[in-house]
């Protein structure tokens, strides 16, 4: 009989693949309407922050830099990233709307910085965000 992996397991593996790719620092899925975090990896979630008792800042610097735990889990606060990205996507959406009219929308956002690259795929209901290292240039 045919037996396929269940859809959610498949999805899990896709996400795991993505977050384990070399160079990928963190992934984040947020709801497009509310900005609620659906899933994240490589980012500090609220619980972890509570557990740690230290809140790293959003810009990627970590407060207790010597803390190996923080390093491993990621250096950014998931909520901060979610908020910033969500706002960015919203304003990008407004920009597109005013530029190209109602019937257009942003499909892919790539932001290259000196340090890394942010790739955002906006979809009808969710946003997928991946932050990854870029080759040193």
């Amino acid at each position: 009989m045919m037996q396929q992996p269940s859809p959610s397991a498949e999805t899990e593996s896709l996400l795991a693949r993505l977050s384990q790719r070399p160079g990928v620092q963190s992934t984040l899925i947020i709801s497009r309407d509310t900005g609620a975090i659906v899933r994240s990896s490589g980012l500090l979630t609220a619980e972890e922050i509570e557990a740690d008792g230290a809140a790293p800042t959003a810009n990627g610097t970590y407060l207790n830099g010597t803390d190996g735990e923080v390093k491993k889990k990621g250096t950014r606060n998931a909520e901060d990233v979610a908020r910033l990205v969500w706002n960015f996507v919203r304003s990008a959406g407004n920009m597109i709307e005013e530029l190209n009219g109602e019937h257009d929308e942003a499909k892919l956002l790539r932001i290259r910085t000196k340090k890394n690259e942010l790739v955002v795929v906006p979809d009808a209901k969710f946003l997928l965000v991946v932050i990854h290292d870029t080759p040193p240039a």
Partner: protein
Amino acid sequence: MSSSSVASRKDEILAKKAKLAELKRQRELRQREFSSNRQILGDASELAQASPLRSRSTQQSREDIDSLIDSILPDQQAASGSRTPSGKSPAKRASAFEQAQDVVDTPVRKYQDAVTDTQTLSFAALTTVYEIPVETKPEVITYSKGVQTSEAWQSGDDGVVEGEGEADGGTRSPGRRRRRYLSERERELEEEAIRQRLRQEIEEELRALSLDESVDKDKERFPARSLAPEELNAVTSSNDFLDFIERSSKVIERALDEEYDVLADYAQQARSAEDDDEDAANYTGRKGRRIKEIASFDLTDPMGKKRMISALDFSPKFPELLCTAYTKSQASPHTPPGLLNIWNLHLKGRPEYSLHATSDLLSCLFHPHHPSLILGGTYSGQLCLWDTRARHHRTGEPVQRTPLTGGRTGHAHPIYSLAVVGTQNASSIITASTDGVVCAWSTDMLTLPQEYLELHAPLPAAYKTDDVAPTCLSFPAGDPTMFLAGTEQGAILPIHRYDRAGAKAGVDTRTSYLAHMAPVTALDFHPSRGKLDLGDLFVSSGMDWSIKLWRANPPSSTSTTISGQQEIVRPLLEIQREDTVYDVRWSPTKPAVFASVDGGGVLEVWDLNASTEVPVAAARPSCQGKDVFGGGGAGGGVRSLNKVVWEKGVGRHVAVGGLDGVTTVFEVGGELGGVGGGTTKSGEVGAGLRKLVGRQGRR
């Protein structure tokens, strides 16, 4: 106006003035508040709604008053003297009054509209005492902030009054005027400063307000109302979410796989230049006959490891897409037996689509006229049709499949060969199974074959004993009605799809191409692009360790004798190899170039113009060497390559696949692939091949 009445009126008015002094004071206070609001907040949007109406009504009332005063006042200079100081600082007023006394009243009116003037407004009190407060009241409430301006406004008043004095000109001494100028200017400056300050304050306040709002908004959504576990489950298991992940992760991986760094700064990099040199050396050193591996696609665990590759095809529309058909997994029996992956050269490590079938897939093909359709032939005899547009492609089920029944409704034996013939609007799918059944199908309906043909051995004597078991088939470029089929018996047979004059549909008994002493593994007609017609050439490969080049007889040829003896055609060229040759394919763009793969796991590219005995280039997939089936031993293990296929557009890419289930894509140098760009023009190359054919043919 009669002069007799003037005196009585004067008295009357004086009395009234006295009475009004009190009222005036109160009103002035209010007016001051109001006018300061009006002037300073005049630009604030909220006020803008109220002010036009208001100013209109005041204007009107002022006009009324003006007319009234006109009638009364020509000789009322003295009276006005008693009036002016009433709300003002007496000292300043006095000085202003001295010069202005005689003329002050008439000009006042002129200034009324220009600036809200407390002095004139005091006149308004005569008629509009009740009206104006009612109107101003709401505004006063709204702008409770509209601040302490008593100093400023006093001075402002004076300034205006003095302005009046000035306006009627010449009676004053220059010294006083200068002083007035000075004080005026000072006052104006002061006023301006205060206005500025107020404006700033208000703006700051507004900003703070809006900031508060936005912060509030943020706070409503962020820190994101973190979803409860149940909610999270509901979201992550929703179809929307699964689809989204499927789509978006693909996009992101493509984005990340993009090797070229768009921000590359060549001015700053020395390292990449060296790499380029190396590449260039490769190119020049081997005269554009280089073969370079550019991608390889392996199976992942969820798909089931230890599958063999049974077929490969490049998409005709999207040169970066190729599909790979696999047999069943030896490692994980629970995965679907038939697997067809569509790989993207820009998406490493995972297939663009993963399609399933209920039985081992043995052949696959992109539909040449419908880029989203993919065909696959299975071991059980089913022809499956997938559509990448199908909404639930996540399940990988085919959208159509042929029935599994035998009889005349389809195949019941493995389908090793597939072809699509015809044109954009009228095409049919030709399938051949190993029991010698050939069917033609319409893409729209796979429930019943359009044509059904059983193949029989060409010699009636061997009719019962010799099967015709096609393993591969190939159509000549220009003729959809006949094709060649390579058989397990080693013969290559011409097969006509339709009855024609003097012969039945099926195997053409008059001609056969006999040279392979073992099953024919592959057969490929020349694609025949170019000026010279090379379309009658074909190559074949067989398990007898050889590659053969043939020239096909024209289908209408009647070179056979009446006795029915068949003509046996010999190959133009025989190339002996050291291993089983599993597949051979012409380059779609270079007339004399073809590629072959063999049991030793080597991809060889041949250029018949350069050599008819040795390949001009060879390569093996880098992933080889690991022993898939645990055979062990030095040089052991299975590395055989089963299939080779060229990219159809420009012919720069060659994909190979074999027993280890790894699809490897090579890029060939400019002499072996690509359109033009070689050392010779394709016409000349074709001519060279034609000459070669002529030479061999005469032998």
